[in-house]
């Protein structure tokens, strides 16, 4: 685990840069995290991020693309547009949640 400075705060991250402390995330931090992977956050991004943040504490796992699509009403195709390439990982990264793990 590493400690880094970002958006005027010290945060704990794993070897791939995913936040390890749920409570260290702020909206200002999300803007910085998104910028690091070349994403400028729009209202549509925020809709996804707020769902991910609110879903995690009760569900105990980072939501999958299908879960976001079904429960937050953002189609998977759009998730690929908002977070190009690897949307599941990028969403988790910006939302300050653990990297999604496919169940075995």
């Amino acid at each position, binding site marked *: 685990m590493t400690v880094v400075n970002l958006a005027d705060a010290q945060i704990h991250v794993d*070897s791939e840069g995913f936040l390890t402390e749920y409570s260290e995330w702020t909206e200002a931090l999300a803007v910085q995290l998104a910028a690091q992977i070349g994403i400028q956050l729009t209202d549509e991004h925020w809709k996804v991020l707020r769902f991910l943040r609110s879903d995690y504490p009760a569900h105990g796992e980072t939501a*999958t693309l*299908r*879960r976001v699509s*079904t*429960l937050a009403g953002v189609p998977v195709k759009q*998730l690929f547009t908002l977070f190009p390439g690897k949307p599941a990982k990028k969403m988790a990264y910006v939302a300050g949640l653990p990297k999604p*793990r496919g*169940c*075995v």
Partner: protein
Amino acid sequence: MRRLLILGGGTAGTTVANKLRRRLAFDEWQITVIDRDRDHLYQPGLLFVPFGRDEAADLVRPRRSVLRNGVQLLFAEVSVVDPVRKVVRFADGGAAGYDYLVIATGTSPRPDQTPGMLGPEWRRSIHDFYSYDGAFALREALQSFTGGRLVVHVVDQPIKCPVAPLEFAFLADAYFREHGLRDRFEIVYVTPLDAAFTKPIAARYLGRMLDERKIRVVTDFMVERVDAEQKMLVSYDDREVDYDLLVTVPLNMGADFVARSGLGDELNYVQVDKHTMQSVVHPDIFAIGDANDLPTSKAGSVAHFSSEVFVDNFCEYVEGRAMTHSFDGHANCFVESGGGKGLLIDFNYDTEPLPGHFPLSRIGPLSLLRETKANHWGKVAFRWIYWHLLVRGRRLPVPTRMSMSGKHRPNEEVRS
């Protein structure tokens, strides 16, 4: 009389019904299993059907014949569960009340969930092998397939028996080799994951085995639709994979009545406590086997190990005592690798599959994460164990909780 209703007479439902019938007094407890059809299918055998192997025999037995006397069996299609009135309603208008409900209705492949999958090419150039009819249709398709690109494909996680598509790719490679035709075929493995498997150490072993067999892997592929006319898979990020013969694992989902009853997540899996399998909403409802949302494999081994925990807990629960047993996510799976060999993997919520020996350190006789003939014979022998011990609710000579004895971490550094 206290009434226990078990929905689903598959691996988990049958095992639990038989175990509880021996534990709960006949004059106090009525145990009823409800299923929509008469036949109990030995699902691990389906993998071998497309290759015409002996392992594919003895696949089906009547559900009645594997349930103990004193367990009632009813045939009905569940329409909805009313957890407030404690009633299960059926599609034919009937209903049954319960004091305790166990949901064991499993998970099913749903080709209807991917546009283009069902249609005139379904079971012609597009196949699955997780159903009895599908496995036999694929046998015919393989026999008349004379060359070209075979694509083995997984739509999304989680799936029932998560190693089965890899095994299918290994067995297809061996099958073409045995017939001296391997050079006429290209085999491509297409997965939504970023590697051959979810867990890093096993992914590395299995990835190497795919390489050795010249099976190409396409990763991070989230399928949006199947273009059955052009014979290609199209992903959400507009990548395309052509095929001549597609063997897909459709999206897996729990039963629709789970969603209608307000008990499920986005894939209709019943939300339960991961150590007790008790519903997080209604304490008199439990969900066992593939039907629940446990963060481990959907596999018969999980159904088996978690059933042991569930039965002990249930007997405490109905006497008003605290449940003292906790499921650790223990799973183990034989991975058939072709040519009469196989691997074994053994893991739980916290420990990924590691190399070593099982069940006894150094002695084995089975090897973990290594291809051996003994593992293959273990898989073959398992059919007998399944019909005669496992679903009968008898104890198997393997521990319920995963053990670190006999396992070791490989020296190479692994990124998690």
